[in-house]
Each structure stands twice: as C-alpha cells, then as structure tokens.
C-alpha cells in the first residue's frame, strides 16, 4: 500500500502558512483551520439562534437552550451549587470537543480531536485547574484525597501509591480516551473506504453499506466522547470540593 493511500494519511498535518513566533513554528495548518471552523460554528450558532431572544423559542433557539440546559443539568447533578462558576468552562469544553468531532465527520475535514497533543492539552488544563482548585479549597488537607479511611492500616502503603498513580493518570486517560476513539473510528472508516475501491465489480457495495452504518456509529461516538469528557471534568471538579 502506497503512503498516499495509508488510512493514517488523513491525520497528517498540512501547513497553509509558514508563520514563526520567536523560534517556534506556529504555522496555520489544516488542524488550525478545523479549530477555527469549530469555534466559528459554535459562536455563530449560539449567537444567531438566540438572537431573537424569544419567550417561545424557534427550533434553532431550542437547540441552543437544550445544550445549555444539558450541561447546566450535568454540572448541578455532579457538582451541585458549587458548579455554577465552572459552567462557562465546562460548556466551552463540551462544545469544542463535540463540534470538533462533528466537523471531523465531514468528509475531507481534518479532525483535530484525533491528535493526542490537542486532547492532552485540554485534559492537562482540566487536571491542573482541578488540582489548583483542590489546594485552594482544602490547602494541605488536599493530600488526604489519597488516604482512604476505613481500610486496615497495613493496606495504606499499597493503597496510597495506587491512589496517587490513578490521580496522576487522569489527564492521560482523559486525553487518550478521546484521541483513541477518534483515531480508531476515522481509521476504520478509511480502511473500509479502501475496500470499496479495491473490491471487484459490485461487491464494493458491501463495505460501502458498512461505512454508512459506521458513520452513524461514529456520530454517536463523537457525541458520547464529548459527553464523557464533560462529565469527567465535572466529576474531577466535584472531587476538588468533596474529597473522598
């Protein structure tokens, strides 16, 4: 299989400009374009649909309100009243990941959520923010987060390292989950697309049908992963308020 037909080729980054800031290359690439499109879609949709500010909403306004209520409900269910101030951040995160995934589902569009560096950066922001929040709320007592009460004392030498490791692996699991899902889904689609071309006569219809079904599944996963990213962020925020 030639390199240009590789299923991973869709993840390659193509620079559109050669911009440098200091010694760093900050070229505008297809990944950047995807991000810009995503942000444009979100901001335009949420602004234009709610513009009439109707008491009785139009269908489009209703979609915006549903999204708003969806995340507001999620935050109040997991964090409670403390969660209100993090609403803009969690909402932005959810929308960014969701629309990023959806933009990635458009053929020939680059999926920036399939890049570990992007998802890891988002997860790291959450992780660092939540850790700072934990220290602000509880001070040095935050370390009791790793101490599980109610177990025999001789278990602690084992349990505390496990707790610490599981805490530190949070950003990794959070980012890898999203990245791996996007990577696997898009690769699978591309592999089956390759079959459509490679198979003789009309047998290519079979993988094509499979692609149609997979696309539906991928759209579901795109939503699900955004939801998982948002709900885990909420749970981490909750942990920063209520230690074990």
């Amino acid at each position, binding site marked *: 299989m030639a390199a240009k037909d590789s299923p*991973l080729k869709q993840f390659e980054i193509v620079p559109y400009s050669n911009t440098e800031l200091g010694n760093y290359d900050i070229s505008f*690439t297809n990944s950047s374009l995807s991000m810009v499109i995503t942000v444009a879609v979100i901001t335009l949709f949420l602004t234009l649909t*709610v513009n009439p*500010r109707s008491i009785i909403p139009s269908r489009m306004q209703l979609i915006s309100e549903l999204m708003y209520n969806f995340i507001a409900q999620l935050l109040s269910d997991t964090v409670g009243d403390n969660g209100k101030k993090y609403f803009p951040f969690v909402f932005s995160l959810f929308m960014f990941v969701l629309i990023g995934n959806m933009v990635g589902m458009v053929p020939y569009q680059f999926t920036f959520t399939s890049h570990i*560096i992007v998802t890891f*950066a988002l997860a790291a922001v959450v992780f660092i923010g939540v850790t700072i929040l934990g220290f602000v709320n509880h001070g040095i007592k935050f370390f009791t987060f790793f101490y599980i009460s109610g177990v025999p004392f001789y278990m602690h030498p084992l349990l505390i390292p496990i707790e610490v490791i599981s805490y530190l692996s949070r950003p990794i699991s959070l980012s890898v989950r999203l990245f791996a899902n996007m990577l696997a889904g898009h690769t699978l689609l591309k592999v089956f697309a390759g079959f459509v071309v490679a198979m003789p006569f009309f047998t290519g219809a079979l993988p094509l049908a499979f692609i149609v079904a997979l696309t539906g599944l991928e759209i579901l996963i795109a939503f699900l992963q955004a939801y998982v990213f948002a709900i885990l962020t909420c749970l981490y925020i909750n942990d920063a308020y209520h230690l074990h």
Partner: protein
Amino acid sequence: MPQLNPEFFVSQLFWLVVTFSFLFVFLWRVSLPRIGNVLEKRERKITEDLTAAKELQAEASQIQEEIEKQLKQARTDASEMIKSSSIALQDKAQTELKKLDKELETKIDESAKAIDKSKSESVSQIQDQIHQITKLTLSKVATFNVSDDEIKKAVSNSERSIN
C-alpha cells in the same frame, strides 16, 4: 503515525490556545448570558402568569361565592315575600268574609223583622176581617146580638186551636 510527529506540536498548541480561549471568552461573556437571560425571562414569565392565573381564579371563586350568596338571599327573600303576601291576602279575605257575613246577617235580620212585621200586620188584618166576617155572619144567621168581645175571644180561641 502523524500524531506522534512533534513537528507541528507547537503550532497545534498555539492555535488550540488561541481558538479555545476565544471560544471560552466569547461563550462566557456573550452567548451563555444571552441564553441564560432568555431562560430566566421565560421562567419569570411562566411564574408570573401562573400567579396571575391563581389570583384570577381566587377572584373568580370569590365572585362565584358572592353570586351564590346573593341567589340564596334572593330565594329566601322571595319565599318570605310569598309567605307574607299570602298571609296578608288570607287576612284580607277573612275580614272581607266577616264583613260580608255581618252585612248579610243584618240584612237577614232586617228582612226577618220586616217579614215578622208584615206577618203580624196581616195576622191582625186577617183577625179583623175574620172578626167582621164572623160578626156579619152572626148578624145575618142568628137573631141574637153577640158582643164584640165575645167574638174576639172565640176567634182567638179558634186561632189557638189551629195553631
């Protein structure tokens, strides 16, 4: 795998920071307050309408109560009126009847008296006539004279026996 190629890491991070920061600030400052305001406005409108509806309902039930009260009052008033007017009518009828009775009684009395009077008059007339007839008959039939007193006596005797 292109994901592990660090060539564009910095570029991606840079554009991620730029786009996500813009998105966050825009949603935080513009979009979310708008949606929040709309939802709040709706919530407020709904609660206002609900309270207004409740107030109106209370008012309506109060009016209904008033109407029922007035109806009840009207019914009792009407029945009382009927009662009192029927009593008054009965009284009036009774007094009329009594008056009529009295009038009739006096009239009956008067006529009885008149009848009595005419009866006694006619009786005395008849007696006189009988007396004269008897006297005449006697004077024609018999040769002896009979005094008036004796005739009267005989007539009254015969009258008594008739009666």
